């Protein structure tokens, strides 16, 4: 049983990038914008973060660089879909493909490079408690920041005036517009914030988790994060729990393999998506549920004149 705390620790770490990116996409979608470019934004942020960590040796700067890179790419996406009304699905896919190629292109010189020595993180005192210490209190600060961000998002979306406006823009941009809110700018801010969070997730992967840079490093986690928002029915806390669940399934499978139990890893790789489809099927049968949680204008362009 001495493996269990380590399994919990690994689950928290592997769920963190999914939770961060999932939260970012949730904020996008609450404002009515669907950004399928998550994978691309995470990749561009991963190389930006790695490059920053490599040149400065600072994790903080790496996360700032990652957030900036993700935010910038998201801003470009936002300008296209919000002002030029390009199709959100096609534009998002283009951002993903662009991010893949662009990150590979600028990252060539960083392949095989090594980040400077990093000390393990421990919360003094707490980390010495048996079982709980190794499971919960020996993580990179970003693991805790992700939890704090989820809590902040709950407060913001459901307790603050600005969050109410954001949700109004996602539910009925026409009404929000009629009330005098600048729908396009609010959407752009949500998109940039979402991109920045995806960026932090990307930087976490390349700077803390792997830690290395190679082409295609994100390896599909952007898509899992997208599935996660639907799986969580657009509720931040469920995004966090879903992220730990998706992260934990992989880790549990590896732990089982290590213990000599056999399990199909291909089947497990499909699980997040199957779970998402199941949730979609369930909530689609219940109209009230959808009405309560799913942003009504998700994916639809907004023309202020009409």
């Amino acid at each position: 049983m001495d493996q269990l705390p380590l399994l919990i620790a690994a689950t928290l770490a592997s769920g963190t990038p999914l939770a961060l990116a999932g939260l970012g996409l949730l904020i996008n979608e609450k404002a009515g914008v669907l950004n399928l470019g998550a994978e691309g934004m995470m990749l561009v942020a991963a190389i930006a973060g790695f490059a920053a960590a490599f040149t400065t040796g600072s994790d903080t700067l790496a996360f700032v660089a990652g957030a900036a890179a993700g935010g910038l790419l998201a801003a470009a996406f936002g300008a296209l879909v919000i002002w030029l009304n390009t199709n959100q699905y096609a534009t998002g896919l283009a951002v993903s493909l662009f991010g893949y190629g662009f990150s590979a292109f600028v990252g060539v010189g960083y392949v095989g490079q090594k980040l400077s020595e990093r000390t393990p993180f421990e919360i003094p005192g707490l980390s010495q408690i048996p079982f709980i210490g190794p499971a919960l209190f020996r993580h990179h600060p970003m693991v805790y920041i992700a939890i704090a961000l989820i809590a902040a998002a709950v407060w913001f979306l459901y307790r603050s005036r600005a969050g109410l406006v954001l949700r109004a823009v996602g539910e009925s941009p026409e009404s929000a517009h009629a009330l005098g809110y600048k729908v396009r700018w609010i959407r752009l801010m949500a998109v940039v914030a979402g991109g920045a969070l995806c960026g932090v997730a990307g930087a976490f992967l390349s700077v803390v988790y792997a830690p290395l840079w190679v082409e295609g490093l994100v390896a599909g986690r952007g898509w899992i994060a997208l599935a996660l928002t639907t799986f969580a029915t657009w509720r931040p806390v469920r995004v966090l729990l879903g992220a730990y669940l998706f992260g934990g399934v992989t880790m549990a499978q590896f732990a089982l393999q290590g213990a000599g139990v056999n399990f199909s890893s291909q089947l497990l790789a499909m699980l997040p998506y199957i779970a998402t489809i199941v949730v979609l099927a369930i909530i689609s049968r219940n109209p009230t549920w959808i009405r309560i949680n799913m942003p009504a204008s998700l994916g639809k362009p907004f023309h202020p004149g009409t």
Partner: protein
Amino acid sequence: MSTFSKRTLLSLTAAAAMAALVGCGKKEEAKPAATAPASAPAAAAAPKAEPLKAAWVYLGPVGDAGWTFAHDQGRKAVEAEFGDKVKTTFVEKVPESADAERVIRDLAAQGNKIIFTTSFGYMEPTLKVAAEFPDVKFEHATGYKLAPNMGVYDTRFYQDAYLSGIIAGAMTKSNTLGFVGSFPIPEVLRNINAFTLGAQSVNPKIKTKVVWISTWFDPPKEAEAAQSLINAGADVLIQNTDSSAVLQTAEKNGKYAFGWDADMSAVAPKAHLASNMVFWGPYYKKAVKSVMDGTWKSERTIWGYKEDANGVIKIADAVPEDIKKKVAEVKEGYKAGTMDPFKGPIIDSEGKERLPKDAMPDQAWKDKVDFYVKGVDGKIPAGK
């Protein structure tokens, strides 16, 4: 999503359909003589001859610090050897799809006289183009299908894995080794078994735990798999995947691991015990030379230590002297042909004898490895 499905077995499904096509190609095939413009009687003294054009098709970018990088080192070795008598080109990041066929055909049409296709998934495209260009020689890495103008080459990576096993067996304190595997194909199973047998040769108590990740390349997943092996008690790790993530995870945890496909000593100075290398240069030089001389033959070539095609390099200072000596001895054995990692007796994990005592395995035996040796935990995931 990036799936580096190099050597993937997917293309096996297309194999049956292709067989007929190859059959047709065979009949029209001309004799492979006097194809290279530079094939003067005395190759060394050929003055002012047109350089021989040779081309490489790569799966990854040359900067992948692994599989493709190693092939490109081989190409550079050809350039260094033959100077202006050869003109090399390469195309990188060629997917194992219909694109591969187009790239290979372009290279053949551009007048290249020998074309190396360096990933398992290029087997069918290479066969197809080979049938269209009987005057061009094709060499396909890690495959098994031949044509009159298409040869196959590979290296004995398991010789490396066995030597790394010897080092791992000496360095482990928990007597538990960890292996991060990609797909349960014979090539990878051979490496797992050789690694375990090597370790057992110096430490009979060795157990190896294997975690399969179903990809050649997903660094975060490789790191997760490595972490779970460490959590399960493994303290020396090795991988048959393409990034240095396993090594870096070992470094983070204060454990040991190995480099694979490339010199990874700089990535994790404390964890790095040795790097397992493939050197394609010697074979590429031989193949190019044989086209120049007009002696090229279609055959399956598998090279190892004897031909300087493999090597375990940069063995860490922490490894005891007597173990380094043992590694050197086995290397000599490989070269002399007296040593093989799979020299009998080979007992599988269920106690069945797969090779009797003192028997030497032949290539057909090695091609069909589908079991774990005794000491490897668990069962091989069912492919079917």
